[in-house]
């Protein structure tokens, strides 16, 4: 072992993490090396000065602490509106919205409003919000979209 290696081993000795053979080898070195003995001694003094044992916490204190934390958890859960909860968004809200959009699109596409000669004015008003959508929604055989928009009633 070289001297630098002994320095590595000193740290592990202090932490009780040396194997038996390593500990015996280091002990023999320490018998002969005052510098390493002094280093180990200084580390102990530094540790004693810088680190204090954690304050003793009783079981009652931990029980009280747990009650405080659980109360905060419940309070945060109660404050969140039900309809924001992720489980709702995942489980039913998104599928419901998707189904609604599909139903609305189908209704627009197959709405039978209007007579043979022209569209229902409510259909025209709805479709007038989007001419390109109207071209898609109006079934084949009906008046073409341009003529539909031309028949919008006067206000």
């Amino acid at each position, binding site marked *: 072992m070289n001297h630098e290696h002994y320095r*590595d081993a000193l740290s592990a000795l202090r932490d009780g993490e040396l194997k038996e053979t390593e500990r015996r080898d280091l002990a023999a070195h320490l018998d002969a090396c005052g510098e390493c003995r002094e280093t180990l001694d200084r580390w102990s*003094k530094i540790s004693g000065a810088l680190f204090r044992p*954690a304050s003793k916490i009783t079981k009652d204190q931990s029980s009280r602490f*747990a009650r405080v934390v*659980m109360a905060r958890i419940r309070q945060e859960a109660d404050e969140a509106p039900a309809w924001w909860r992720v489980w709702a968004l995942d489980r039913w809200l998104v599928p419901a919205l998707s189904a609604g959009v599909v139903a609305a699109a189908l209704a627009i596409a197959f709405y039978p409003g209007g007579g043979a000669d022209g569209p229902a004015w409510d259909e025209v008003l709805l479709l007038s919000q989007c001419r390109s959508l109207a071209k898609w929604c109006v079934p084949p055989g009906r008046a073409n979209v341009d003529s539909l928009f031309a028949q919008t009633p006067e206000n």
Partner: protein
Amino acid sequence: MTQTTTDADLVRRVSAGEQDAYAALIERHHANVQGLCGSILGDPTSAEDAAQEVFLKAYKSLGNFQGDSSFGTWIYRIASNHCLDTVRSRSRRKTESLEALVEGDSAELASLFCGGRRDEAAQENADLAQRLLSRLPEDYRVTLILREVQGLSYEELAETMGCSLDAVKARLRRARSSLDAATRHFFEPGNV
């Protein structure tokens, strides 16, 4: 809940919706977590507040707990990250080096290392110790605190810090060597 109920069992029960099982986890790990927070923050009052935040964060993140480490080391990781974030947010200004601190506070450090513990100076010594430790790189500081105050083994340290055993050994050795190099003159004959 019996003493033989493991942390893993309690985590499973919380995940299944049994909220009160989390209270048992808190009681088991409260002392260690608050102790770690106190060591990093250097302030007992802040330690309890920080410990509350840590357990709240852990509750919200329980879905991410895979069980590949123990609950204890997992929550230690949350606690050390939370406390380091707190320390960083407190100190935005550039801090002096370890050597500059030792030079600037030489008399106080001599009292800390050689003067014995006087009750009236206890808080000053605690503050000074905290300032000295804060000059170490964060990973070195947290590893050293977890080892010296919490008594974690090298394996537990590696799990908590998310690093190898060799990295743990290197950090401890370098942290101790840095502190030793900066403060050894306080221990020379004539100063002690």
